């Protein structure tokens, strides 16, 4: 094989390896965008995280300082969902602001256990919690 | 009032932009006598030819007279007549074999110093 050919083949091999690496990274740990109704329809054996966005229901925010437990409800056009989150109360957490929660739904307790909580703020250039 | 200022600014801009188009200015923008390519070729020819006033020390570039054995500016030993001159130093980078950046002498693989001029060679300098 001429050395130019070796060069090209080598390049293609490297490109393919990189492609395979990337392709295999795109599975697992991903989260699906769902609405409230679809989340409530999930069974107990969820393999993937779900991601739901909704407006925070007024007066639903409760914060237990000792346990660092945050509970609130979000609402979208398909219904209302109770959220439970362990962690510091995020900035900008206030009524009628949109929140995105990522985690798994517990059908038995009818509560969504959020691992990650992102506040989506209405004004420009807002950053994530 | 704002309309007046708008036209004033527009007029100033038009003057600046139109200035080179005035007949007097137009003549001053005469096309260059030599094209870019011609200039490049002339420069390359000058680089390759030894200068009229003498040869250049391969180490420091100072001009030396034929017959000198050491450069009077840096003290290095000078190439003797018949040895390879500074030609290869200015050759285009597409040269096949590694050349000493100082004197252009052909280097062997693994050389730490140039055999002709004694210049230390970094691995990264070999082009």
């Amino acid at each position, binding site marked *: 094989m001429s050395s130019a050919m070796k060069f090209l083949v080598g390049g293609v091999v490297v490109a393919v390896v990189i492609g395979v690496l990337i392709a295999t990274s795109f599975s697992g*740990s991903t989260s699906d965008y769902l609405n409230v109704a679809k989340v409530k329809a999930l069974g107990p054996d969820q393999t993937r995280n779900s991601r739901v966005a909704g407006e925070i229901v007024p007066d639903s925010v409760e914060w237990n300082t*000792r346990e660092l437990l945050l509970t609130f409800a979000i609402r979208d056009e398909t219904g209302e969902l109770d959220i439970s989150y362990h962690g510091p109360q995020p*900035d*900008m957490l*206030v009524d009628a602001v949109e929140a995105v929660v990522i985690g798994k739904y517990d059908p038995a307790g009818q509560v969504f256990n959020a691992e990650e909580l992102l506040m989506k703020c209405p004004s*420009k250039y807002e950053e994530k919690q | 009032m704002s309309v007046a200022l708008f036209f004033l600014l527009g007029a100033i801009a038009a003057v600046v932009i139109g200035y080179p188009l005035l007949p007097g200015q137009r003549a001053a923008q005469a*096309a260059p006598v030599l094209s870019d390519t011609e200039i490049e070729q002339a420069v390359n020819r000058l680089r390759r030819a030894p200068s009229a006033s003498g040869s250049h020390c391969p180490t420091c570039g100072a001009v030396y007279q034929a017959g000198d054995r050491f450069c009077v*500016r840096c003290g290095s030993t000078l190439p003797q007549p018949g040895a390879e001159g500074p030609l290869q130093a200015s050759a285009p980078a597409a040269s096949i074999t590694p050349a000493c950046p100082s004197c252009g002498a052909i280097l062997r693989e693994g050389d730490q110093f140039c055999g002709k001029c004694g210049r230390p060679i970094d*691995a990264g300098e070999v082009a």
Partner: protein
Amino acid sequence: MLLADIGYGVLLLTLAAALWAGVASIIGVWRRRPELVASARNALFVTAGLSTLSAILLLVLLFSHEFEVRYVYEHVSTYLKPAYVLAAFWAGLEGSQLLWLWMLTIFVAVLVWRRPTWDRELRPYAMVVLALTEAFFAFLLILLTNPFELLASVPVEGISLNPLLQNFWMIVHPPIIFAAYALWTIPAAYALAALMTGRLNAVWLRGTRRWTLAAWASLGIGILIGAWWAYLELGWGGYWGWDPVENSSLIPFLVGTAFVHSAILQERRDMFRAWNVLLAVLTFALTVFATFVTRSGLIQSVHAFAESPIGWYYLGYIVLLLAVTVGLMLARRQELRGKGELGDLLSREFAFLVTNLLLLGSAAAVLLGTLWPTFTESVTKVATSLAAENYNRFMGPLGFLLVLLIGICPVVEWRKISAERLLRNISVQILVAVVTAVLLLVLGVRELWAVLSFAATAFAASTILLQMAQGVAAHMRTVPAVAAAEVATMGASGAAADPPRSSRHPNVFVATARAVGGNRRRYGGQLIHFSILLIVIGITGSQAYQTEVQVALAKGESAQVGDYTLTYQDYIYRQVEEGGNKILNEATLDVYRGGRKLTTVRPEHNLHSNVEGAVSEVAIRTNLKEDLYVVLASMESDGLAAFQVLVNPMVVWLWIGGLVMIAGTLVATWPSRKRGEAS
């Protein structure tokens, strides 16, 4: 409103001047009428002056609180501190677009001011591209995002700047990012000029090299400042979230890095001509793509920008630009064939190819990940989003290989190197890497990927240090010119004086200065590579070993986090600050380690009158080894407070790496006065 009307009028004039510049350049070069090209050049000075005037007008309106202007009303208030009034200029879409246009016109004016010889043929074509880009931006400002738009009635007070944006970073981060975007226009314009004229040799690369490096470094520093901002201000202990807005600056950075490297390949070996024109245009197109991503509403982001049709105009511009580029590349495929021959697999050429594949592969993957929700939604009706873990799974190995290449490339020779010689060249570095790995394992580091990452970094760092040492050592052997002349004259006159000491043994500082000065480009590049290694160290350390504790404390109680003991000493609850718009909740904690008091930290959790919800100010104690990061999550009236405390190892190395990157870029781009220096 007089000033606002003038501002808008100035934008109209800017559009007209930019259009003239574009048209006159192309006609001037086609019809051989240099006076038209000169007129176009003047028109580009005019656009710079006019957009400066526009910017000044907006600043005046902001500082004089002219709330009749909608943009002023939305972003400032009478009680906003002056430094933040400045930041408000680019806090919104309209202002940031004006900032971008202004920066582009200034850089273009600087570019066309000088008339170097190499540029004679390419210049008019580059001017067309630059002028039409300016015209496009001006057009968008006039039609879609007018910063001078007026309200129907005059409000008495403005909404003011969001408190999350009232900090030092908002003053510096957006200007640096937009400067970077504007700078990347220049190599793209010259790539297109090279295609249009068929002059596809390395002249356009060499000529634009300093602009390219400035663009690259600005974007890199801008990204790091963004990460620093996220870390300091947002209170989640991280500095990178793989959010679409963050990603859309990273993607052009990776592609731009690939371009910088393949440019070297064309300059040295006349290869990769097609790559270079394509990558230059692609990098610029991707900076524009960032705005499309963030404004079109196509991608969900927590950086919730208001949707605007401007995103789709930008997409159209990108499509047009890429179509023109590809079309020109097809037309010029003969001239795109370089003279360099592809060499052996064990060659620096192949190492460069692998480097570019890694960089472009990671850019493509980040782009795909950013668009993944849109893609999966159109295919499976369910939008799926990637988590940080997905990104780490490919960026980790790709980054690892890139770090290894930083260590290998400098010792691989052009054209061909034998396997034995290559092994000999990297034997010391391999030893260093192995020793590092063993040391880490002995010290208790168990994560394999962290050990590999640190070992690879040690490998690459030792290559850089060895190269540096070799260069300095060579210059310590060389006799400097001046002192040797003295030797020669003294010898000639028969004096038996010893030559001055400096002529025999230049000290290491002089030798270093000579080495670097003699090849700024190479040593600057190595310094930049070294800065990347520091950043990798920071990333590895902070990702591998973050410790987090969440605890609620009453006054007087203590908590243990890692090696630290934090004692909650005091608090301030709901105290209204002077100026009246901030209600302060602050906790005071003393930090101890091993019984010795280290410092006192004061995290805050405040309320602002113009923003709903609380804003926390994190307290950080930084040293080279780790950051102690304390967040006050909430406080009750009796002082009972919830804290989140993190120990983040090695984060400061990211910022140190940024400083070294600036230094390296300065070295690499510093103008040289010596003739014959590698440039």
